[in-house]
């Protein structure tokens, strides 16, 4: 198993700030926008972007939720392991809101498909966008593309992209791992 650094801490930091700026460009004061981190790994990215928006760019009232898609996945009973759920925390109505889904790695697009179904349980949003730190090109199973992407990566199927976060793994680094 070999691993290669795709993005180091400095690069991750620059990209996060750029993504935050792109969000501000589109959503201004976030009065009608909510950010939704997708469980489990998208939540860290969503929290970090929210922090940057609030602290570095002084955007007040950024609404942040977390959505678990376990019960909406299309591979229930197809994988070897049953799928253990995570917490969903959406304590606001999404009716007529502009939603930004946030996930760390966009790969086949199936998680996003599940999230699109899951969010409907909380109302009918005005629009939904997708922000992802890593976009694995040429690996999509569904016609889903990000609106905001950190870095596009060409990775083959036996490679895996892993995002480490300071809060969890002690460093902000993105690795490409060959299985």
């Amino acid at each position, binding site marked *: 198993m070999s691993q290669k650094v795709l993005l180091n801490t400095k690069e991750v930091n620059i990209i996060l700030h750029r993504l935050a700026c792109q969000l501000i460009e589109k959503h201004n004061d976030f009065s009608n926008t909510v950010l939704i981190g997708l469980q489990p790994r998208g939540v860290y990215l969503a929290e970090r972007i929210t922090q940057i928006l609030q602290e570095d760019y002084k955007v007040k009232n950024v609404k942040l939720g977390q959505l678990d898609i376990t*019960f909406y996945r299309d591979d229930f009973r197809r994988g070897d*392991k049953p*799928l253990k*759920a995570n917490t969903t925390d959406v304590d606001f109505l999404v009716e007529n809101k502009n939603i930004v889904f946030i996930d760390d790695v966009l790969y086949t697009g199936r998680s996003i498909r599940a999230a699109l179904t899951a969010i*409907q349980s909380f109302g009918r949003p005005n629009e939904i966008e997708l922000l992802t730190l890593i976009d694995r090109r040429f690996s999509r199973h569904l016609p889903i593309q990000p609106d905001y992407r950190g870095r596009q990566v060409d990775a083959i199927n036996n490679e895996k992209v892993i995002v480490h976060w300071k809060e969890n793994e002690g460093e902000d680094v993105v690795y490409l791992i060959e299985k």
Partner: protein
Amino acid sequence: MSELSVDHLLGIKYLKEQDIQLIFETADHFKEVINRPIKKVPSLRDITIANLFFENSTRTKLSFELAEKRLSADVINFSSGQSSVKKGETLIDTVNNILSMKVDMVVMRHPNPGAGIFLSKHVDASIVNAGDGAHEHPTQALLDSYSIREKLGDVAGKKVVIVGDILHSRVALSNIFALQLQGAEVMVCGPKTLLPKYISELGVKVETNLRKALNWCDVANMLRVQNERMDISYFPTTREYTQQFGVNKELLDSLDKEITIMHPGPINRGVEITSDVADSKQAIILDQVENGVAVRMAVIYLLASKIKK
């Protein structure tokens, strides 16, 4: 652990402590789901479940059906009153006929103890026991423990007294197994005639004085007197039973501490519990009903995840 150790839910006796924890953690998520504006998830779209009720039931049947529908399973219902069972069909034949219609899971209530276990050995489907005679009622015990955990934070170390007709109660037996598995202390309390002779062999305390029992416990689970299962008289009159084993406000107020009151339903108001207690803040009877749906969703979801296509 992310998988149950069993393929059927036949009784608490067959579960491990980790199974119960997994069911509760999963139920937490489903409780959040059933409080959403849209209370439905698509997980079990390709699963068909037959609810076979060979005995009357209101809340368990509705609770199971709602749980199944909120998981998007297809549901068929069967009550023995309107069926060919009356024409002399055997249980295995009835169920195999239903399974030929491509049913993946069977939820069954049956008057005979062990009916679920028997079925699990002879038919090819996942079986959930929704009550078999005076044997077990596992989902009721799970939702009772889940409600205690929700109200008091934990089940381990808590003292729970089960009051009433222990002899005819499947709820009592399943509760004893479930509570002990999670490290709670259990006491049973009732008239001697309604306490099984060897009940202390299960490691439970036995008490015939309700006041003493209530003073000892953190939680009192009040059972209904099951008149329909009594072929002889176990106590002189209902009035006398109420005087000795019914809880009322006065009795609860005279205790040293505030205890939690549970009841699996249906309540006989004025017999085992008075209305002012049943409707008081100490009672978590309606929470039990709400939790019942979440816990049953968890059980069905976890069992369904083990059905391989």
